[in-house]
């Protein structure tokens, strides 16, 4: 039964554009979906290796800017008079390069995290995001600074045999985001249910013991950071080509906080956690719009988060799993037998 849940969820979400025609709601689904992909990537670091990256939005923004610039082209003069001219490339190459550049930044930050852990890692990641934001804001020649990069082309994809797909409509963007979400989900699932994932869990649980069984700490932290940053970059790229305009505000701390809230409330270290948390916090403003002003919406947002953390400290998904698992273990005579072995 539990194995079917992801497939049922996928079928339900795949059917959404078929019956939902309200562009506002469809837009909410798309932007929430993009944030969920980012939250899933954060979960890989936070939930599985236990490293809190509070600059996660940097990877998202780097993916967005890189992808936009690759597809728009640019012409900049570097220090020393070297002029770099880039002609626009197909949008899908922007997506790939954006993902790779973000992953590369993840590699750098991951290497650093070997030296600094815990609170220091958090500070390093925040600073990293801030530095990247300042670059985006001030390197006007490349990024247009506060004027924003505009008329970013929508995603296009040349599929051999099928022809040219473009993603202008909301429906097509919805399916694009869903596809990236599913691929990210599968990548993360493959990772965490393998020796890689076991190594990550071991590091989070007890680092010296993990090292003593021969797990290379640096390797797995860096690996987690690379995949995490790459997926966040892919989400950023989707964001840029969907909204068609990005400014340095994509690096806002608020986005990181949103991702962290989605992961923690849904259940960190679970595959479905960021999706459940993401849907809830992505749709609060939508649901509350009819009866509450924006200020009240934020208050509701905060209240709900506090309630979830208090009532379900491990998150929604682990709580639901436990609730479903409880009756079956109670009916099972096994624990009783196990207890009897304990008595001498």
């Amino acid at each position, binding site marked *: 039964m539990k194995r079917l849940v992801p497939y049922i969820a996928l079928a339900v979400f795949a059917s959404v554009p078929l019956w939902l025609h309200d562009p506002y709601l469809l837009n909410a689904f798309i932007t929430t979906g993009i944030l969920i992909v980012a939250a899933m990537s954060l979960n890989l670091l936070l939930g599985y290796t236990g490293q809190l990256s509070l600059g996660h939005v940097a990877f998202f923004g780097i993916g967005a800017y890189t992808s936009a610039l690759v597809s728009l082209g640019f012409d900049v003069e570097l220090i020393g008079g070297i002029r770099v001219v880039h002609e626009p490339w197909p949008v899908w190459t922007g997506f790939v390069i954006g993902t790779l550049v973000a992953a590369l930044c993840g590699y750098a930050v991951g290497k650093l995290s070997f030296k600094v852990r815990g609170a220091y890692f958090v500070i390093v990641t925040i600073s990293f995001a801030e530095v990247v934001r300042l670059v985006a804001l001030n390197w006007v020649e490349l990024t247009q600074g506060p004027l924003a990069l505009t008329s970013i082309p929508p995603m296009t994809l040349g599929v051999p045999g099928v022809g040219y797909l473009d993603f202008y409509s909301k429906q097509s963007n919805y399916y694009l985001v869903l596809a990236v979400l599913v691929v990210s989900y599968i*990548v993360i699932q*493959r*990772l965490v249910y*393998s*020796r*890689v994932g*076991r*190594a990550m*869990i*071991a590091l989070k*649980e*007890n680092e*010296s*013991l*993990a*090292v*003593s*069984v*021969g*797990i*290379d*700490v640096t390797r797995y932290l860096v*690996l987690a950071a690379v995949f995490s940053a790459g997926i966040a970059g892919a989400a950023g790229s989707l964001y840029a080509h969907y909204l068609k305009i990005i400014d340095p505000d994509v690096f806002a701390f608020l986005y990181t906080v949103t991702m962290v809230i989605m992961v923690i409330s849904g259940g960190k270290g679970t595959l479905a956690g960021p999706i459940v948390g993401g849907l809830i916090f992505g749709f609060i403003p939508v649901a509350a719009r009819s009866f509450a002003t924006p200020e009240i919406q934020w208050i509701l947002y905060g209240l709900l988060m506090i309630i979830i953390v208090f009532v379900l400290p491990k998150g929604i998904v682990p709580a639901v799993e436990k609730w479903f698992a409880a009756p079956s273990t109670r009916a099972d005579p096994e624990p009783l037998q*196990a207890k009897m*072995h*304990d008595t*001498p």
Partner: protein
Amino acid sequence: MSTMPSNVPQPVLSVEHIAVHFGGLIAITDMSFVVNQGEIVSLIGPNGAGKTTAFNVITGFLRPTKGEVRYKNTSLSNLKPHEVTSLGLARTFQRTSVFQSVTVFENVMIGLHRRSRSTLLDTLLALPREGRAEAELRNLAHELLEIVGIARRADELAGSLSYGDQRLLGVALALATDPSMLLLDEPVSGMNATETARFMELLNKLHGRGMSILLVEHDVPMVMGVSDRIVVLNYGRIIAEGPPAAIRGNPEVIRAYLGEGASRHAAH
């Protein structure tokens, strides 16, 4: 060395003139001993004698101020702990010897990390090799749990095991790395008599399979029962070394453990 077993001893682990200083504090002055192939050697001494420090140096968790540790003629001086493990040297920890929040079985699967041949690409693409490698690991994990005798606890959370069983799981974790030598840090401290007896049984079983074992322990009766040789440490110095029978009557050892009066009493 002072004692020679009947056949020619093959030293596997040699500790050569190790000194450890923590700032002005000298934890170990000058320590040298060897562990031969297939031997159980115990490092004993009163609290604060430097046992755990010695242990951490040998396993690469602490750099010695002076001296060198060699395992099968490879110097451990510049190796990281996980590299020491891959040479075939596995250790257990005094406390927190298991991954508490995952099951017993998953603990051993984590321990089997270096035994898996699957690569990152196999994992991501779910290639058949990945499935085979994982199935192989699961079999190995079951085998290891059988060896240490906690197979029926496989699906329980490691943190919910009794203290003695957690120690056994700790040994299974160490064995999972396919070591040729085990380093056990006070494995029976806090165990009751039954648990200790079970643990000694396991040590004898491993000894029978040719495993070399270095034991750091202050449960003297237990050490006397299983060791081939005992090295006694006090105030960071080796004060005696030899088979259990010789150590039992050594006046300096008795003095170290029981104080001045007792040794005078024993000498008579």
